[in-house]
């Protein structure tokens, strides 16, 4: 990862207690993280998230909506952001629920400053990996888009495990034609083997159902 990308990563804090907001902001700044603090979830939602790894530090008790409910709402809205929960009196069922829903950590107040920093680092790392995975798929998609419709079709059939002859029969073309298209697919997708092409097809979700 380049330094520029590192510097772009940010931590968001939502807590209705201004003093704690400021304390946390200061703590994150002290290790060079970008911080943005909000008094409520609605304020947060109005903010445009950067295209960079992020982590959210959230109080379970919030006016209006509980932290856990907000977590569920974010997931529903397809906003994928790692969450570190803080709680004044967390109980086990609440913790379990948050962790199941993908929370990074569940920290009871008062927490050790290092625990908070570690949790946030884990969150940022997790977000970084998620973002990287998302960009690889985007590249594959771009390559796939360069294929002709017939080549895309043949990629789906080849990766389903069909022989050239079978594909020819299926499409009503000659076996030679299938071989040519297949070569184009391997080249355009940059696949060195059939196995790699199968993985790509899986990632793209274009692999046909294997014949019975």
């Amino acid at each position, binding site marked *: 990862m380049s330094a520029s990308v590192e510097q772009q990563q940010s931590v968001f804090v939502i807590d209705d*207690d201004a*003093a*704690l907001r*400021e*304390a*946390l902001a*200061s*703590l994150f*700044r*002290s*290790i060079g993280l970008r911080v943005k603090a909000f008094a409520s979830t609605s304020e947060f939602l109005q903010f445009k998230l950067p295209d960079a790894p992020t982590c959210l530090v959230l109080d*379970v*008790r*919030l*006016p*209006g*909506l*509980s932290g856990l*409910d907000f977590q569920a709402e974010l997931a529903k809205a397809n906003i994928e952001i790692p969450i570190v929960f*803080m709680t*004044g*009196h967390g*109980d086990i069922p609440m913790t379990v629920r948050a962790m199941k829903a993908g929370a990074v950590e569940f920290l009871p*107040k*008062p*927490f*050790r*400053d*290092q625990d*908070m*920093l570690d949790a946030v680092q884990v969150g940022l790392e997790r977000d970084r990996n998620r973002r990287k995975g998302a960009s690889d798929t985007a590249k594959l998609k771009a390559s796939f888009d360069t294929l002709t419709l017939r080549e895309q079709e043949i990629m789906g059939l080849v990766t389903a495990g069909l022989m050239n002859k079978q594909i020819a029969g299926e499409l009503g073309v000659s076996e030679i034609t299938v071989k040519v298209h297949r070569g184009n697919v391997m080249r355009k997708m940059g696949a060195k083997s059939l196995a790699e092409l199968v993985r790509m097809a899986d990632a793209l979700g274009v692999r046909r159902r294997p014949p019975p």
Partner: protein
Amino acid sequence: MRQRSKAGGKPAKAQRRKTLGRKRRNAQNPLRRDNSSVSGREREVARLARELNEAAEQQRATAEVLRLINSSPGDLEPVFASTLASAVRLCGADIGAVHRWDGDALHLIATHELPAVYVELRKQTPHRPHQHSASGRMLASRSPVHIVDLAADRAYLEGNPSTVAAVEIAGVRTTLAVPMATEKELIGSFTVGRRQVRPFTDKQIAIVQNFAAHAVTAIENARLLRELRESLQEQIATSRVLQVITGSAGDLQAVFDTVLENARRLCDAEFGNIYRWDGEALHLIAWHNTPAAFAIYRRQGAFRPSATSLVGRMVRTKTVVHVADAAANPDYTERRDPSLVAAIELGGVRTYLAVPMLKEGKLIGAITVYRQEVRPFTDKQIALMTSFADQVSIALENARLLQELQETLQQQAAAADILKIISRSTFDLQAVLDTLVELAVRLCGADLGAVHPQRENFRAFSIYGLPDAHREVAAKVLFAPDPGSVMGRTAMEGKPVQVADVLADPNYTLRDAQQKLGYRTVLGVPLLREGRPIGVLVMMRFAVRPFTEKQIELVQNFADKAVIAIENTRLLAELRRRTDELGRSVAELQRERKNKLMNLETMAASISHEVRQPLASIASNGGAALRFLGHAPPNLEEVRSALNRMVGESHRASEVFDNIRALFGKADQGHEPIEVNELVRGVLSGLQGELEENGIRADLDLPAGLAPIMGHKGQLQEVLVNLVRNAIEAMHADAESRRLLRVSTAPHGGNKVTVAVEDSGPGIDPKRSASIFDAFITTKSHGMGLGLALSRMIVERHGGQLSAAPAHPRGSIFRVVLPTGHPAKESR
């Protein structure tokens, strides 16, 4: 006799064997003696022949007499006639007579060849013989008297009528009177006579004596036989009666019938009656062959014999009364005693016998037998009747014992039934009293019955014996402890009260009920608890028929059981009430204890929660400051501001303690009169910003004139702020147009005030409504549980209550009820 005939008939043969035995020699002696002259021998033969004839005839006569005696036991007339005839013939007399001696006079019982005129004469008057007459002398000497010529006798010469009659009418001249006597007594005379003067020989006298002895034997035999027969008959009758008594199992009628039938037969009476004595009168309970008119007369009314009457004497003396001729009694002749007049004129009674029936010396009745002619009963018959009376007494006693046994058994069964019901765990007073009344009615022969418990205001609680339609009537009748009703009198007097006929009672006022239900005899028995009536058990009869002592006792017994049942119910109810109370106070104690614990927990949780927030800030700021110091160069600006914040947060933490101490530490010092409406207005104006921010409309209903409450203003403020904030939170999910907060105050009861905070939110999940006040139970997104627990604690410390309920059409309503005036110790 045989020897004689051999000697007479075959002399030659006897001669040839003269060396033979002594007998033969002896037999030859008369012949040898009379050989002296033929004429002497002939005379001797004639004499012997005559003797032989006489002896034979005597034998025959005796045999005949004995045969007669044996063949006709008891019927002596033919025996005497035959004996007399034989005697007259054998002793060459012409006439004869047999008399029975009764100690006073001679009674003619058999005659032979006496003129009818003479016999008639004799039968008309008892024959009391002249002391110088033959019979008179015989009676005096107890030995045969032989008068050669009665016409020359002194009695005749002195003109003794019976002697004159004997001589002149019967033509008696020579007469022989032989006494008939047993070892003990003279029982009669046996007389033979001749119409010419010719003395009886000794032999003839002996013959007459012999026949007289036969007659005595016959009489004795007859007497013994009669006695035997009588005693047999009596024994048979007695055993028959006893059989009936044993077999009848309380069927007295069968016993009476048997006794009367036997009594009538054995006493040779026309008819017989059995009476029961009730202490005042005789009641005809059985009769046999009694003329219908007489029986009906006796049945119609009680037979109260006058003290002077003979039956009255029997009642008084408890001894047998034997009346030879009832018609001779002045009670009849002067018509003083109607019952006697009835007996004579309706029953044709002349001779009668009344035998008392006694039990342990007390008169219980009488048995009577009647003859429609004047003919007294014999001692034997009287003895027999006494025995019958005893037997009837025994039968009556048996029947009484049997009935008592049955009653006792019935009562025991009834008591067992009732005790069974009483002891049931699911105790149903109605069922018990219903059963009690039913059994009481049935066992004491009443028609209606009811229990009137005092606790039901003496209304009929259990009624038996009425169709449903009439039960209404009975149940509606209002009773009061007054003399207007038997029930009332019983309740007043506290002891059984009986009115034989309520119609005849001028003080009886329940005319309406009486008319509808139709009862006449009423018995009231009190249900007594510790001597005080707690109700009345009433028994009624449609007929005028008072309850007996025994029945009253029985009803009292049932009343006692009813008291037990009612007492049990009362005790059971009390036990239940006490148990409930105990349970409630235990629950209260438990809740109080739980509350105290909860209050502690609530306080601890509240404090720690409030302190966690600044502590978290301090820790974060500290961490930040340390890291900024580690920067190269150290970012002192950041360090300073972090340290400043730490100082601020430290103060904040200590404020938490100050606040808590202010709220709960010195609670009493903060107590002051509070106008609830003012408090509400203050809290709402403080929260005005939050309400507007959330687009919530507030609707206040604060009527004037509420009494002020005493309390800690700060604490109560906190409570209201908490409730309003809860309401704001609850409406967060609502559309803004619908968000409505209602706060109202109102007086509650006489000395309390209610503050209600209502929201229009989704309301409390019914599953959690019971636990919303527990610490740490989060019902809303913002974790309001802690606030509610604290709020309730504060309200309860003020002696009030905090409760939650669903509002209509939606939302929740929280109510705070606080006492007005000084809450005193509750504030601690």
